[in-house]
């Protein structure tokens, strides 16, 4: 058995995984259980290095899951010995031990995946790059999952806590299952009973659905004309649609505020239902015209030959064929309207007509406890995320076709 650069690289990878998972899982254990688990980074470094170093000494073809388990146990025992010497963590309770065990099970799997097929001899550039890419991918998965999940986790868990427990231990984001559902969901119950969140939910639904319907009503004929009919100015129009879309909302907000104030449209839902479609129609036209162009024109010509009028062709041939695109556009526009903040914030003063965005913003005050704010955030997020997960295929298509929008 030759010891080459791969052995040292393996030891380093083991150390890195040991440290990363120790920090991540300790924090996770703290957040989930509420108990303090202090990660011992030095011990994790050494134990990981020993485990992965041991792992690579076995010839690649003989490494099975049993060998992975052996290295995990060795690393775990090393950590326990280190800990009893350094006296860092109290391993008499279950949680630190369980955390450490979990760390080295996951670490062992990670180094198995990173070093699969690599022997301890000196490796050439190709093999080293393969290892590097595997390590980076593993690191990337851990990194992205944490950064995406952490804010949502904090949002959800905070909404279920009480003010005192939040301030006494901000890391304790566990669910206290001994509480009754009424206590657990107290923030939500109060938002719906005292802060009119039911109304906000309804207002948001009204505004978003109206926006989708009006946008479709305007953009389907517009997109059809731009993509299928010949008229002077067609090329200019089809190119300038996107440019119009680049005009920032913040540039429009002062004049619209001014004019809508004088017309009495400002503090009304109608004002929003006028403004939202106007800002979404260009992107809807852009998305739909792309789709219409991709449809075979022969079908429409056949329809025209058989005596259908243009409008008949649109209604009987083009639209049924475009249903997936229309679904994508609708979901995308719904998401934009549901999430919109600037105009709702500038236009709505009267709590009876707040949309969810505006309503959650109104909760951001020092007098209102922060679990209420987070409960409001959850209420605003859940419908759009459920819709997204339900119709992910359509929405992803919509995002890809239309995400010239920020």
């Amino acid at each position, binding site marked *: 058995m030759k010891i080459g650069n791969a052995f040292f690289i393996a030891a380093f990878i083991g150390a890195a995984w040991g440290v990363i998972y120790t920090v991540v899982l300790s924090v996770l254990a703290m957040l989930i259980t509420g108990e303090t688990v202090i990660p011992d980074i030095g011990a994790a470094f050494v134990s990981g290095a020993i485990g992965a170093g041991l792992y690579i000494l076995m010839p690649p073809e003989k490494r099975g899951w049993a060998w992975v388990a052996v290295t995990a146990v060795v690393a775990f025992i090393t950590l326990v010995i280190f800990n009893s010497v350094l006296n860092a963590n109290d391993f008499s309770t279950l949680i630190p031990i369980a955390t450490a065990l979990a760390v080295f099970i996951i670490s062992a799997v990670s180094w198995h995946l990173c070093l699969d097929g690599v022997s301890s001899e000196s490796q050439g550039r190709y093999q080293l790059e393969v290892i590097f890419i595997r390590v980076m991918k593993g690191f990337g998965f851990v990194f992205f999952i944490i950064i995406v999940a952490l804010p949502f986790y904090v*949002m959800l868990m905070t909404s279920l806590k009480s003010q005192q427990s939040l301030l006494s231990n901000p890391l304790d984001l566990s669910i206290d299952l001994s509480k009754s559902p009424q206590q657990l969901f107290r923030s939500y119950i109060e938002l719906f009973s005292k802060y009119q969140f039911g109304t906000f939910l309804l207002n948001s639904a009204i505004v978003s659905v109206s926006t989708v319907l009006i946008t479709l009503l305007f953009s389907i004929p517009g997109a059809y004309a731009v993509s299928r009919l010949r008229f002077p100015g067609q090329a200019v129009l089809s190119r300038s649609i996107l440019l119009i879309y680049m005009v920032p909302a913040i540039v429009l907000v002062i*004049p619209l505020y001014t004019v809508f104030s004088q017309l009495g449209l400002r503090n009304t839902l109608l004002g929003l239902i006028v403004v939202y479609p106007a800002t979404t129609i260009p992107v809807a036209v852009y998305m739909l015209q792309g789709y219409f162009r991709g449809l075979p024109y022969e079908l429409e010509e056949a329809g025209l030959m058989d005596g259908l009028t243009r409008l008949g062709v649109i209604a009987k041939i083009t639209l049924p064929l475009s249903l997936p695109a229309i679904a994508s556009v609708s979901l995308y526009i719904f998401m934009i309207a549901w999430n919109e903040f600037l105009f709702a914030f500038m236009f709505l003063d009267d709590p009876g007509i707040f949309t969810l965005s505006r309503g959650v913003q109104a909760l951001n005050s020092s007098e209102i406890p922060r679990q209420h704010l987070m409960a409001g955030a959850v209420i605003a997020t859940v419908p759009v995320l459920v819709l997204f997960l339900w119709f992910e295929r359509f929405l992803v298509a919509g995002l890809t076709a239309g995400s010239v929008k920020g």
Partner: protein
Amino acid sequence: MAESTASKSTPPKGRGPLSHSEMRLAYLMILPTLLIVMSIVLLPLLANFWISFKPVQLGDLRPPTVIANERMRPVPKAAGDLSEISYRLRNSSQRGDIDNVVFSDSLPEGLTIDGDIDQRCSISDRVLDCNLGAYAAGKRETLKIPVVVSQSYIDDPVKPRQSKPVISGDADNILTNSVFSLENYRKIFSASEFWGVLRVSLYYTVFGTIGALVFGLFAAQLLSATFPGRGILRGFFLFPYVAPVIAVAFAWVLLLDAGPGGTLNAILMKIGAIDGPVNFLGQRSVPITVFGFTIRFPVALTTVISFEVWRYFPLSFLFILARMQSMSSETYEAAEMDGATPMQQFWYISLPQLAGILAVLFLLRFIWTFNKFDDIFLLTGGGAGTRTLTVDVYEQAFAVSNLGAGAAVAVVVFVVLLCSALLFFKYSPQDDG
């Protein structure tokens, strides 16, 4: 379209009846779209330019009017009692004058004028008409009408208030008059913080855009190969973009809170990475000494840029992933045969194919990041050195109540945007996208 026209035997300029009707239909179909886009996007854009040349305050949105307050004292008890109807009139505005104020009100039945009334007024058929002339800004006066009551009024007393006086006047509406000034521009360009605001905007836009692209590229590399759970992860990576900005921004505020209850500070302190809480959103900068040089590291600005990257990397991720899935695997197989290492394959095969989509994404993200208002406004409110031009528009127009100055900043936003868009369109690669 060009081919289909060329293949027809009709000359390109002559339009038959069929193409005429097609043209009419096309205009008919596109007209509603054009109208709503014109009135809600293009007209306001022009109006914004107009307002930026006007010395207009938030309070000027209510045009100056004459407000009347009417009462009758003393309350008559019996027929023949004397009483007095008085109208207290004032110009609602402290800044704008009103010309040709005309006042008219009808008196309740059963009252007759007893004594002199104001010379500017006349009464006929129980209708009081007054030509009050000009009302300077803030002017107040009281019109007094002495009356004597008859029995019919005592039987059926009608409060004079029940008929509202009709007042008209020519107020000079500051929004529509022909007074223009460059005062707003002079003010914003001479303000000491303006160039700082512009610099912060550029930092935010450039680093936010590049960060989102790099992270999107990284995330797309992770999910380019198929493995179980890939679809779920793809959906999960899109969460930051799909969730409402209001929800995720406040979640970040809570996560980064410097007071008791801030999760990230508590985590970092527990694992020993920092000694005391870091005010991620409230601290302008910390001095960092590297090799003897001290640089002031902008904390809050870095945090809002991180938020921008976090929220918009899913978008670049989605685009890059879609582009990568359309690449053929043959090139990679050939490169593999030739002994190209994985990094070489990435640099010399993947990246060049992604250059087009990366350029398009850079352009679009640059524009939209520059336009971004909500994110910074919700995270820091533009404090601690994070005020960008878009937040400045809001601050000037609605916090300082100077609509004109806000509109002038908005014009700057638009001009910067237009310039960068033109530059990009000129130099961006013309291939796929």
